[in-house]
């Protein structure tokens, strides 16, 4: 295989510029994978890998992914928060790659909250 070079980046840049003008970049959903020490130790990295694969497979561009630290519920990790614009955030507990796939397909794409996995609705308040 030919070596990847800075020129490849230039080509990618041109391609992306062309596509960017065709898309609207509105963010519809923000997904947060909690990645404190506790989350990582219980498998948050695999959950994150699965989520990134699903996003790529679904070719959606209105979903942003971010990470956050521990929120004090270490025993229920891995935790994932799904925030659809103008709706209360939903926190899922004990997430694994299979649950992540289901949450992505059913909740993020189809809008159905996956109640059996839900820990809570709303934002955490840290005092």
């Amino acid at each position, binding site marked *: *295989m030919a*070596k*990847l070079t*800075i020129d*490849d*980046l*230039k080509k*990618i*840049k041109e*391609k*992306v*510029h062309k596509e*960017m003008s065709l898309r609207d970049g509105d963010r519809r959903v923000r997904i947060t*994978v909690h*990645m*404190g*020490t*506790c989350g*990582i*130790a219980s498998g948050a*990295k695999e959950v*994150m*890998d699965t989520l*990134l694969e699903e*996003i*790529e497979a679904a070719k959606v*561009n209105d979903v942003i*992914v*971010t*990470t956050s*630290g*521990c*929120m*004090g519920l*270490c025993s229920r990790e891995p935790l994932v928060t799904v925030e659809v614009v103008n709706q209360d955030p939903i926190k899922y507990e004990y997430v694994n790659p299979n649950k992540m796939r289901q949450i992505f397909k059913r909740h993020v794409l189809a809008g159905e909250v996956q109640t059996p996995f839900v820990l809570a609705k709303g934002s955490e308040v*840290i*005092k």
Partner: protein
Amino acid sequence: MLTLADHILDITENSVRAGAKFIEISIEEDTAQDLLAIEIKDDGHGMSEDVLQKVLDPFYTTKTVRRVGLGLPLLRDAAERAQGHFFLKSQQNSGTQVKATFGLGHLDRQPLGALINTIIILIISNSQVDFFYKHRHNDRRFELDTREIRKEIEDIPINHPEIIKYIRAAMEEGLRDIESEA
């Protein structure tokens, strides 16, 4: 923590939380000296002498949501289990440097694990931070600097799927070329 990549992800999140804008992650494998060294250096707000004394205590944490802080103690333990050492240097307002060494061939040394995914997760979720990844295996080297990538892609965000695809391919190629043994 099952792999060293998990530790890297965890410790680097500390750097991000310390407001770092530039983080260097360096991995060195030296077969002749039977040495594996991992170093994470940031330009975050650092720690005072006083805090530095306490961070290796598992019951010390800066967070208020729970009473334990295990990130650094777990890494120290992993290093010492594999006949390695743990070093921590920090200066207030200039940054922190964490280094862990391991016996490369030691039976109890954790495997490096999914390094590429770890670096990609760090880049995607902290797109405001620049990362410099250096990996040496004896006399072979691989480097990836997001500052250089950013210079080329101008207004495209670094976490754009096409750019991430490029970073993944570049890392796969680079790590294959240096034939990492850890």
